[in-house]
């Protein structure tokens, strides 16, 4: 598969992850937002794994 396309997907995923973490932080004390954000983060971790990335850290393996 085209590496450039993969890289573009990885970058977009990184932006989403940063946004999601900011959302989770701002949602402290608001369970309905924080818990749903945590679920989305788990799904995002799967996208990262499927793009060959470490699910947690921004570093490439």
């Amino acid at each position, binding site marked *: *598969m085209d590496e450039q396309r993969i890289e573009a997907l990885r970058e977009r995923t990184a932006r989403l992850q940063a946004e999601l973490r900011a959302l989770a932080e701002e949602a402290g004390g608001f369970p309905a937002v924080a818990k749903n954000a945590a679920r989305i983060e788990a799904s995002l971790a799967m996208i990262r794994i499927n793009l*060959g990335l470490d699910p947690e850290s921004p570093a490439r393996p």
Partner: protein
Amino acid sequence: MTRESPYWNPYLETLPLERLRRAQLARFRRLVAWAWDNSPYYRGLYERAGLEPGDIATWEDVRRVPAVDKGMLKQAQEQEPFPYGSRLCVPLEQVAEFRQTSGTTGTPVYQADTWRDWEWWAEAWSYILWSQGYRPRDRVFIPFGYNIFVAFWAGHYACEKIGCEVVPGGVLDTAARVRKIQELRATAMMGTPTYMLGMARVARDRLGIDPAGLSIERITCAGEPGASIPSTKRRMEQAWGAKVFDHAGATEIGAWSYECAEQPGGMHVNEALFLVEIEDLATGEAIEEPGRKGKMIITALDRQAQPCIRFDSKDIIEWAEDPCPCGRSFRLIKGGVQGRADDITKVKGVLLAPSAIEEVVRGFQALGDEYEVVVERIGDSERITLKVELAPGAEGAREEVLGRLKDELRLKTNLGYVIEAHPPGALPRYEVKARRFKDLRPKHG
């Protein structure tokens, strides 16, 4: 419109193997570091072996990491925190799911999963189902109450992820399940080979319904090796008029292997999510080349709550010679899981794998689906009794069938058998996993 990919992950499933292997090594190192930082059990294990995560740089180093087996997992489970023990890598508040092993070999192993782990389980199953042709148009019937066991739960969630419509068929009895399949025109199903064959029997004999005339197009099997045993697979395919696919998984590990739509006579190892090593049974030497059987040591590379690092699964596998025509770079294991190191037993001085008997018995159309093997010590010698059922209408050919069966068994297993033929329906029926091999010899002496 973008064309739909035949691969769940068109990137990793076709990535050259050497790049996949590089990524595996990096992720294995990261997993060991995670376990070192968060699990007293793993830290102690590695300290005793004189190993730190930073020491792992090569495949040789990977092999120096101590393997764990089920007995060790049970010991770790006796420690705090209750009920998972010192292998747990996350605070209990982050555990979202409890599952356990079936406990067929003693105390069950409890498995903790975070929500991310649970997404990962569904992900692993999505690779399987997508490769076997499951698509959003499918209506998938799962004829089990999933209970505390993981496999069909994960299959259920993967169906949802893919977009299939999933029908949980627990609680209903077998006849009601057959009727529900008929009523809803379900297109796919999951189950153990034993149950798939039993369900077909109930449809035919009790309900007068030919299961091959129902709408099932594909069946994914779990829990027993039958779908990789050609004669058992053939029986299921004929009974249901459907393609039957195998997959392999374990509660401690995940769903690590699958047969793709090409059905090349083996299963792909999901090398995006798992690291599979094969070790020689006698020497422990790593086996990299095709054609040599050994036992599998496996690591799920991304599990968070209770990672299982270099798990000695006792499964006997071998790498296949040729790549699969499906185009996946994930390697194939020939003939699926060929047995378990602790199932292979010596009878009359000959190594015997129970799956070899199943392959022979299920190859006889004149025999029913059920059989039972009993190994006994009689005085100084050992005796294997094989109990089979003659299929309805086969009584007239009894002597000829049993004679051929005896010859075929001797040819395939190098052993002689006492054959007992029983009428249809006489042998025990099993709902989920069958126990057809009974070794009654005294353990010692």
